[in-house]
């Protein structure tokens, strides 16, 4: 992250020299200072070689299980609620099996699975097409696998939205600020015309906290977060004991979000 910070300062410097919107640069700079201080290696920060998440579908039982998770994320990240599908912005949401895993469903599937909502979010792909296509490096992948967005650099070309095969990215079609119910001052709000998505709560990891959505299901462990490269991590234990699937694995993007479908007796 120190590299990111250095890069950022360079960018801020250049754009100031070039004179591209002085005040926004200063604001951006100030914001990044804030973020940078949060993420500069602090003793309590959670670190991993490769962050990953496991979604245990069977542990979501009632509507509130989903709602709690979605609200936790959207509230702390100032995700606006426009109340209409055209302007919609979302970081984590639900859809049915056939939409989350298109092509995998079949007519004779167990009804429970077929109609059950699945939690879906950015997969923080190992081989992310959104990063590959971004013309400004506003979308980039960190060493620990988190696929990040730099809201200040994004030009809003939406190439990444065309490239993401999971529909994980949202665009600010209009000013999001009036549509934030209660602003969390600790996380930046966005402007018109930039893309956003789940960031695996990098800002919380830096403070030693697990992602908000994972925290929201601490009791039932429906979501588990951990280091894929650490054989003793909780995610690895689940992966080695349960059958898991990933979304559209045939595309080779290597998602880091795994789904336990059946395993009520596992984990």
């Amino acid at each position, binding site marked *: 992250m120190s590299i990111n910070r250095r890069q950022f300062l360079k*960018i801020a410097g*250049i*754009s100031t020299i*070039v004179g*591209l*919107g002085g005040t926004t640069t200063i604001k951006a700079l100030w914001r990044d200072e804030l973020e940078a201080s949060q993420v500069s290696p602090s003793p309590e920060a959670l670190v991993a070689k490769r962050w990953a998440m496991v979604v245990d579908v069977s542990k979501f039982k009632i509507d509130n299980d989903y709602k709690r998770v979605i609200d936790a994320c959207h509230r702390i990240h100032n995700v606006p609620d426009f109340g209409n*599908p*055209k*302007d*919609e*912005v979302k970081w984590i949401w639900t*859809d049915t099996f*056939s*939409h*989350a895993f*298109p*092509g995998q469903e079949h007519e004779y599937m167990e009804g429970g699975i077929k109609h059950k909502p699945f939690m879906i979010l950015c997969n923080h792909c190992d081989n992310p*097409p959104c990063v*590959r*296509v*971004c*013309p*400004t*490096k*506003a979308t980039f992948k960190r060493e620990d696998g988190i696929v990040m967005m730099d809201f200040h*650099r*994004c*030009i*809003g*070309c*939406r*190439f990444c*939205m*065309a*490239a*993401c*095969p*999971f*529909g994980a990215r*949202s*665009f*600010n*079609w*209009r*000013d999001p600020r009036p549509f934030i119910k209660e602003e969390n001052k600790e996380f930046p709000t966005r*402007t*018109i*015309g*930039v*893309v956003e998505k789940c960031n695996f709560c990098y800002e919380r990891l830096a403070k030693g906290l697990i992602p908000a959505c994972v925290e929201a299901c601490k009791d039932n462990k429906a979501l588990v977060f951990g280091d894929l490269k650490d054989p003793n991590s909780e995610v690895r234990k689940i992966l080695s004991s349960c059958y898991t699937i990933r979304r*559209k694995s045939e*595309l*080779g*993007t290597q998602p880091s979000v795994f789904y336990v479908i059946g395993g009520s007796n596992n984990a």
Partner: protein
Amino acid sequence: MLEKALTGSRRYWIWVFSLLVMSGIGFIFYLKQLSYGLGITGMSRDVSWGFYIGQFTLLVGVAASAVIVVLPYYLHNYKQFGRITVLGEFLAVASVTMCLLFIFVDLGQPFRILNVLLYPTPNSVMFWDAVVLSGYLLLNIVIGWTVLGAERKASPPPDWLKPLIYLSIAWAPSIHIVTAFLYSGLPGRHFWLTAIMAVRFLASAFASGPALIIILCLIVRGFTKFDPGREAIQTLGKIITYTMILNVLFLGFELFTAFYSNIPGHMHTFQYLHAGLEGYGKLVPMMWISNILAVVSLVLLINPATRKNERTLSMASASIFISLWIDKGFGLVVGGFIPNPLEKITEYWPTMPETLITLGVWAIGFLILTILYKVAVSVKEEIA
């Protein structure tokens, strides 16, 4: 030479002023878009590129097709095209300018556009697209202007221009190939994920661009004393006959692959566009107009009698242009997003402000074209 654009008939000025008014209206709505955001358009989370990028895609083809009149003249010494090469080059200038404007109006943060050059990202096709487009624009301005200047003095073009001309010939297809790569390298977008996207783009470009040049030649001949020459127009007629046949063939190949393989993802967009899917079919009538016009143009072009008749040839050219405008400027881009990656359908239709901004960009393009053609034609009238 530019002063030649400042004198003209009443008709010329009425035309110029109507274009100015149209671009003015577009600009006012663009200011609205700037303050409200792209939410003013019909685009959404699911269909995140629409009319603007569609026009861009079509116009890149029109720009690339200048090579169709440049290449035979310079490489094969085909004299008949001598009179119209500059018309092709200037059409390229106008259309590349429109392309860049369409990209610009499509950006969520247009004032950060320089980020593309400040942080060059060679793994992004969009970076290369920006590079080849601006290079092509420069090449055509320099070549067109210099050739015309030389013509005016009745001297051959300077020697240093030759390498630039050859470069521009090689460069032209690249702008369209790179644009095709914007689409054809994306995982999970079945409709675009096809290796023949680039050749399909070239075939359709080499049909729609010269079709437009034929129409422009006939307009120029009707309104000025300059005659681009019957022979040149007829040759262009033959060229669009073959390129349009290729274009339709390529579409047929895509249909075969999609439907014979029977892979749902590959069939969905075709079904959505031409027959409707799950009860959604907003684009079906448009696509059928496009299909029918393609057939009409082929009938008129393949039959020698109607191809040789300039009236029917102009109808065929107009059919091709409208057909491909719908196919590329609309169906290809919008269709690629339907269904979305979760196999759900969100439809798209441009809004009024979006349409007016689009018209405004076209008006600017036509304004540039008019001014450049006015200069070119005046020079040609002068030396005739």
